[in-house]
């Protein structure tokens, strides 16, 4: 059922796609996607849609009805009679199905869907017949899915009555009890948008405009950007190219309402004849009902704001292995240094006792950690083992941070970047910085006094003594050593950059749709991974190397391995661009933040979305996992940092303070401090230890997802450090807990 664009194939595709919804008992699905759950929640009135016995008869009937309707529209009444008689269709069935207006609740659902069917089938019929003017513009659509989606709006009430229905509902909701009002007010925004889009689709431009003007001011302030986009959409053609809007149509907007409030609403709508609203609610809204206290306005506000409503309860219920992988035991090499000699016993896991020791003292498996073989990971090479030993040594010298001992911050300002600096990354041991620029170059600098060297040319390599001890030094070319190297290759601004953990490779993702792997030994480009055909906004190497992820404008994130030219996993589900992608420390999960204001956590093994976090009111630009793997911090254009508990799938904290978009977040090495950098030229430090300690996750909270956020941002803020007009776009804690920050000076 892939969407194939092409003239002749379309008609068949449309037919196939329409066959599926008609066979769906519920009759509510507007797109024929098998993978998405389509059923309404048990609480809603299960619409007794027309039960079709077999697909063929349903399809044939649809076709017949379409033809009949077409003939009727063209006033060929005699043909209508003849056809009806011959086809043996009962009279009332035809009238019933052919009506576009709102009938009784049950049948309109079916009617609406059939109306949609007939519209698209009409277009097919007219396309086949030459020289006949199609009543709808569906023939000009060359994407079958688009017309499927848009045909959802063929059912129409009287356009003038829309405003009446809406204000009626408004009045009703204003009169309900306070405790219910906040919950029912959630309905306003999706209802408003869907009604507006229906009017636009059915070419009632003036009514749409007046409807918009009258009611757009009532919506919540955080939907302002969406409403502005909507206001520019006044004709049906405008809707066509906007993928995000189309996705909004096909996916159901999820609302979480308590049972009592829902009963109120249902009763009210079914008493009146306002079935138009009821239809929209059934078709486009998914009402997740829970038993319990209705939520307060502040609770609702905290969780809402995303383009798809909130997350369903069961979306966040699957088990997530958020623990860390067991560190491999490394045999220390014979040439130990002094520190090793101090400890008498030659056991591999000797070091000064630390909280989360690398060579774990507990032999048994952490129940929350994935097994070592859950995903294939590359084995450690000797150089990797040496790196790990270095890491262990460095971590013994690490400063313990806390509210009393704040980290020192070293800021790297990029001068003369002319607003062209688009991405920055540090290696884990903080020896190299890479910058991605809008002029499509990637530059690598050495932070330490040691210069950057590339491997000698082949001819020179033959001259060296291969048996000498320092052969690894000799293969490096001294003549071309320099502080920085420039890598050319991309054909568009470089938006994402990531070093590999073993410092041999550098990844860069760009607006030209490719991700390039550069070798840091030869400073040349090795591979170009093509897959996204649209700008790739972010990329990151896995903490264990070998895998990397990328997310872009095509609304998916992809998992790649360096030795496969095609992605291994595709994480599809977001409604808008994927702007930020991060690996979990155990490499088994991937978090993606998107312009649709949600964060999703994906399982690498099977590509499923295991968590959906809503609550941000703007596109998300920064994500950070805590070092223990349990928590996720996210920052967005709304200037807030939100903290999420991955295991339970709920929001646990909100840090307010920044005034502009937050572009970078980083936890300190032991997770005690969270640093955030933003466009408002400041770096702020937050006490994450305290933020996570104060959790009271009782069962009720976990099951219903109610959150009780404390407004303690001020207490958690440990310090604000302003730069001289330099937005902070990257943060990095060195192994000894010194904070490095990077940004481009912007006078």
């Amino acid at each position, binding site marked *: 059922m892939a969407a194939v664009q092409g003239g002749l194939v379309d008609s068949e595709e449309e037919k196939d796609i329409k066959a599926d919804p008609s066979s769906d008992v519920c009759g509510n699905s507007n797109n024929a996607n098998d993978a998405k759950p389509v059923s309404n929640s048990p609480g809603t009135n299960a619409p007794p849609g027309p039960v079709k016995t077999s697909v063929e008869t349903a399809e044939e009937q649809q076709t017949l009805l379409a033809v009949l309707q077409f003939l009727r529209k063209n006033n060929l009444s005699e043909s209508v009679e003849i056809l009806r008689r011959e086809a043996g269709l009962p009279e009332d069935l035809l009238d019933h199905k052919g009506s576009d207006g709102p009938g009784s609740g049950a049948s309109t659902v079916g009617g609406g869907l059939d109306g949609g069917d007939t519209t698209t089938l009409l277009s097919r019929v007219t396309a086949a017949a030459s020289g006949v003017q199609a009543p709808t513009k569906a023939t000009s659509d060359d994407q079958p*899915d688009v017309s499927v989606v848009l045909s959802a709006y063929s059912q129409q009430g009287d356009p003038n009555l829309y405003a009446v229905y809406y204000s009626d509902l408004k009045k009703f909701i204003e009169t309900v009890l306070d405790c219910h009002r906040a919950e029912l007010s959630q309905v306003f925004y999706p209802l408003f948008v869907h009604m507006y889009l229906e009017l636009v689709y059915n070419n009632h431009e003036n009514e749409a405009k007046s409807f918009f003007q009258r009611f757009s001011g009532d919506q919540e302030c955080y939907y302002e950007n969406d409403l502005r986009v909507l206001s520019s959409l006044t004709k049906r053609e405008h809707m066509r190219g906007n993928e995000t809007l*189309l*996705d909004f149509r*096909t996916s159901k907007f999820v609302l979480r309402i308590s049972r009592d409030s829902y009963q109120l609403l249902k009763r009210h709508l079914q008493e009146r004849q306002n079935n138009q609203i009821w239809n929209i609610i059934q078709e486009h809204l998914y009402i997740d009902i829970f038993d319990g206290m209705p939520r307060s306005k502040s609770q609702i506000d905290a969780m809402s704001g995303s383009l798809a409503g909130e997350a369903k309860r069961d979306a966040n219920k699957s088990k997530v292995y958020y623990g860390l992988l067991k560190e491999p035991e490394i045999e220390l090499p014979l040439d130990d240094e002094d520190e090793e000699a101090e400890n008498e016993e030659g056991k591999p896991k000797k070091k000064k006792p630390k909280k989360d020791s690398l060579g774990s003292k507990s032999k048994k498996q952490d129940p929350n950690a994935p097994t070592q073989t859950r995903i294939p*990971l590359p084995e450690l090479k000797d150089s990797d083992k040496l790196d790990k030993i270095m890491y262990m040594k460095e971590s013994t010298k690490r400063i313990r941070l806390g509210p009393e001992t704040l980290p020192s911050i070293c800021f790297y300002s990029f001068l003369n970047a002319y607003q062209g600096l688009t991405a920055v990354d540090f290696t884990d041991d903080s020896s190299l910085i890479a910058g991605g620029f809008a002029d499509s170059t990637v530059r690598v600098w050495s932070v330490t006094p040691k210069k950057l060297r590339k491997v000698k040319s082949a001819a020179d390599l033959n001259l060296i003594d291969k048996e000498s001890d320092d052969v690894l030094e000799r293969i490096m070319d001294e003549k071309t050593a320099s502080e920085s190297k420039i890598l050319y290759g991309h054909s568009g601004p470089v938006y994402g950059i990531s070093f590999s953990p073993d410092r041999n490779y550098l990844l860069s993702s760009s607006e030209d749709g490719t991700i390039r792997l550069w070798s840091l030994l030869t400073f040349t480009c090795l*591979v170009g991974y093509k897959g996204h055909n649209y700008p790739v906004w972010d990329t990151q190497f896995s903490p264990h190397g070998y895998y990397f992820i990328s997310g872009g404008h095509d609304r998916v994130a992809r998992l790649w*391995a360096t*030795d496969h*030219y095609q992605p291994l*996993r595709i994480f599809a589900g977001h409604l808008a661009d994927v702007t930020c992608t991060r690996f979990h420390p155990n490499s088994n999960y991937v978090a993606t933040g998107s312009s649709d204001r949600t964060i999703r956590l994906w399982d690498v093994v099977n590509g499923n979305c295991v968590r959906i976090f809503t609550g941000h009111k703007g596109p998300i630009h920064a994500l950070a996992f805590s070092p223990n793997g349990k928590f996720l911090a996210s920052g967005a254009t709304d200037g807030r940092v939100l903290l999420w508990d991955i295991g339970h799938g709920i929001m646990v904290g909100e840090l307010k303070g920044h005034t502009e978009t937050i572009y970078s977040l980083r936890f300190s090495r032991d997770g005690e401090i969270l640093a955030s950098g933003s466009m408002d030229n400041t770096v702020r430090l937050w006490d994450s230890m305290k933020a996570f300690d104060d959790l009271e996750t009782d069962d009720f909270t976990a099951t219903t997802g109610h959150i009780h956020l404390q407004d303690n941002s001020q207490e958690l803020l440990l310090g604000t450090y302003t730069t001289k007009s330099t937005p902070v776009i990257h943060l990095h804690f060195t192994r000894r807990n010194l904070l490095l920050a990077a940004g481009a000076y912007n006078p």
Partner: protein
Amino acid sequence: MSAPKTIPKDAQVMMQILKDMGITEYEPRVINQMLEFTYRYVTTIIEDAKIYSTHAKKSTVDADDIKLAIQCRMDQSFTSPPPRDFLLEVARQKNQTPLPLIKPYTGPRLPPDRYCLTAPNYRLKTVHKKVLPSAGRISVPRLSVGAVSSRPSTPTQGSSVPSVSKVSAPVSLSAQRFTVQIPSAQSHAPKTTSATPPVLMSSSLIGQKTLLMTGGGGALSQSDSLKRKHDDSEDYDAM
């Protein structure tokens, strides 16, 4: 500072459009960029429409032509990402295959060579050398590709290395390069020129060296070509 007396009407319209779309803060150059884009877009559409209308043998350009032009241009330049259900379907198929096992380390983990960018993507033209002792030899164009590689090395062959820049026979050039250049691998070099010896270095580097050779050592190669193949160490030093 002299402000312009009046802003052109088009720019005023553009400012109004930006205001209507809710954009309040923008740099002044944005107006110019938007105007340029508008001009380019509109002229492209109108030109396309003119082509379509002449194709349909109409005397004037009418709305249908414009619509067709817009549609074609949309499909070409302003494509939008694939629709969601398509992506979900593709993702479902892709995610069904289990993650491949990782082979033990056998060098950098890269895709097969044809998907990498590590192959040479250029061929060098050798530079015509000016002063050559045995100039007479130059004129013998040993062009035939196959011949070079299969024939045992003869003195004359070596001589034509740097001289004739017949790019049309790249293989011959490179084969010749090998004979001149890579002494170390040629333990058996005197016998065959086709010793494309298993060159352990990347081809791109070879190219560089070639340039060096032909640039600087052209004179050498001419006279010493005879000796070169027999005496590897000399060549070695020359480099």
